[in-house]
């Protein structure tokens, strides 16, 4: 299988789907002539032309709405936010028009749209440019929230998202864009939405995580195995809404302990949302409270060391795992 960067996998997913279906187009800031602010759409203008690869003004609410309108009458837009921090000026379009259209119209108008772009704390970007919006969008019924951690998942999930008939909030991570991995070149390689993935099998404790934190967690799990003989299972949620709770239950029924690792803020975030559902489903299976490693509860500062101190790290994951195991 070819080895691709995460960004190349995204590019491949879009390009294959655009070959397959003329209704699919890509729209956003700098996606065309600049080849993408993060080079995700590199070469796509040359390949598909300006009808289908569309540069926009800095008008997120406007072009998110244009995408929704186009989707209502049968196109299948991919709307790129340069980063998801900028989706907040388009918030109403996403949580009202995309999320509610099918419902409010009694099922007459669906919105087959993919919003995509990166999010996360990419390093010294400051408070306004480091948002992690997953919990916020996952709060809304009507939206599906997908967050791949690897190049293969990026391709397979983005293709499924483009083929989905519903509005998808597809969130990449800026710091994963250059990560490399094997990616199938089968144009029918799809990863189902709503299915978590056991990225490492283990028997002592279940680490539940997603996006960049999957990488950090896998490393921590290796170190825990080597240094402490602790065997962690690492589950990549991949889809935040709907949550694949069955996979989590199966794992915790085996390990009886869990730690959630996320780049999200702790309060009313994804970790809290997942923990709450697990407690209510399998309280009696749990031998300890669900551990949590998250981004500290503060705006994101510019200073590098300070920012780094907020984030889940190998050390903080290992510490939490040990503490949940009572070691």
């Amino acid at each position, binding site marked *: 299988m070819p080895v691709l960067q995460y960004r190349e996998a995204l590019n491949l997913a879009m390009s294959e789907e655009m070959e397959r279906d003329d209704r699919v187009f890509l729209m956003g800031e700098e996606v065309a002539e600049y080849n993408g602010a993060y080079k995700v759409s590199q070469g796509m203008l040359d390949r598909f032309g300006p009808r289908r690869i569309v540069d926009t003004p800095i008008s997120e609410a406007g072009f998110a709405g244009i995408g*929704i*309108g186009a989707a209502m*009458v049968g196109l299948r837009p991919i709307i790129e936010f340069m980063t998801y921090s900028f989706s907040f000026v388009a918030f109403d379009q996403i949580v009202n*028009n995309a999320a509610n259209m099918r419902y409010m*119209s*009694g099922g007459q108008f669906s919105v087959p749209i993919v919003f995509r772009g990166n999010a996360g704390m990419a390093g010294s970007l400051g408070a306004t440019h480091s948002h992690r919006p997953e919990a916020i969008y996952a709060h809304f019924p009507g939206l599906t929230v997908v967050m791949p951690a690897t190049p293969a998942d990026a391709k397979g999930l983005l293709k499924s998202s483009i083929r989905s008939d519903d509005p998808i909030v597809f969130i990449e991570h800026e710091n994963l864009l250059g990560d490399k991995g094997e990616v199938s070149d089968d144009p029918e390689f799809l990863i189902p939405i709503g299915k978590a993935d056991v990225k490492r099998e283990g028997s002592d404790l279940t680490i539940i995580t997603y996006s960049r934190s999957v990488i950090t967690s896998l490393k921590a799990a290796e170190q825990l195995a080597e240094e402490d003989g602790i065997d962690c299972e690492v589950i990549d949620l991949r889809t935040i809404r709907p949550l694949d709770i069955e996979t989590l239950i199966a794992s915790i029924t085996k390990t009886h302990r869990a730690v959630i690792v996320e780049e999200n803020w702790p309060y009313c975030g994804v970790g809290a949302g997942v923990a709450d559902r697990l407690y209510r489903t399998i309280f009696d299976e749990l031998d300890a409270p669900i551990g949590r490693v998250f981004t500290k509860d503060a705006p994101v500062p510019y200073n590098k060391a300070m920012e780094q101190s907020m984030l889940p790290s190998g050390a903080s994951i290992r510490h939490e795992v040990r503490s949940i195991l009572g070691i």
Partner: protein
Amino acid sequence: MAHAETDVTPITTRTQALEWLRQMLLIRRFEERSAMLYQNGKIGGFCHLYSGQEAVAVGSIGMLREDDYVITAYRDHGHALARGMDPKAGMAEMLGKAAGCSKGKGGSMHFFDAENNFLGGHAIVGSHIPLAAGVAFAAKYRGGDQVCLCYFGDGAMDQGALHEAFNMASLWKLPVIYYVENNFMSMGTHLHRHSCLMDLTIRGGTAYGMPGTAVDGNDIEEVARVTKEAIDRARAGEGPSFIEARTYRFRGHSMSDPMKYRTREEAEKARERDPIILFESLLKERGWIEESAIEELHDAIKQQIDDAIEFAAEAPEPPVEDLYNDITVAPHIPQE
């Protein structure tokens, strides 16, 4: 008619004109009865009546082809009916019934009718204005010559979404016609207290390099005429237009508005320019209809709305389990 008279040739045929009168009467009656049902507690939520503005929807939608698109704000009954929605489906929606045009999930502010390319019914002020550009984008993308007609109020001129959509619509020459129905009131706030300019064609046209035309919104044939120009332009690939239809809403902003900001005299004077009465007079003058036929029309419409109400009243409630349906095309898995 001789060619010398071209400049006074009506924009419409007699058949169409009578159909327009029928539509205006239908809308008026639909809403008058809705007001009563609201007062009796049969209709809930917010309910915004279109009375006084009927000529705008009827005269402009009347110039569309079947495959064109219409989208509007929450004051949507008029546009939906003008676009051909069955009043039964509309009335059933008002009563929250499963047979409603949005299965009882949308209500008065969210009428939808896919068969008639009527794309709602949108209640967040200004938020549907980008959608209209998107619909037009799709038409152009597919290489067709459909157009999208988009309505909103003078208050929506002040929302950022409009600004972003107008710039892109003009930049990309999208086949969309933006219609501000300027009734000079944004809820209780008069235009001069919410808009930096009184001439909206500058704010909506000049500002974006689009043709901006003001029209008497109570003169249905004038509405039709300026709409036709805009449609022709859009179909020819020359881009969007902005039309300011100046009009007056007879009722309060919504059913709960006591209208303290108006004098009785103002309201009465406005009724003299009721677009229905104006059009009836014109048609009579022109010899296209007689008084007796008008009365028959009124009666027929009364009956039609009575039937719609009866239908709606008797229609079953949606089952409560329907709560979880129509959320997504894929099965909805409640995250509870």
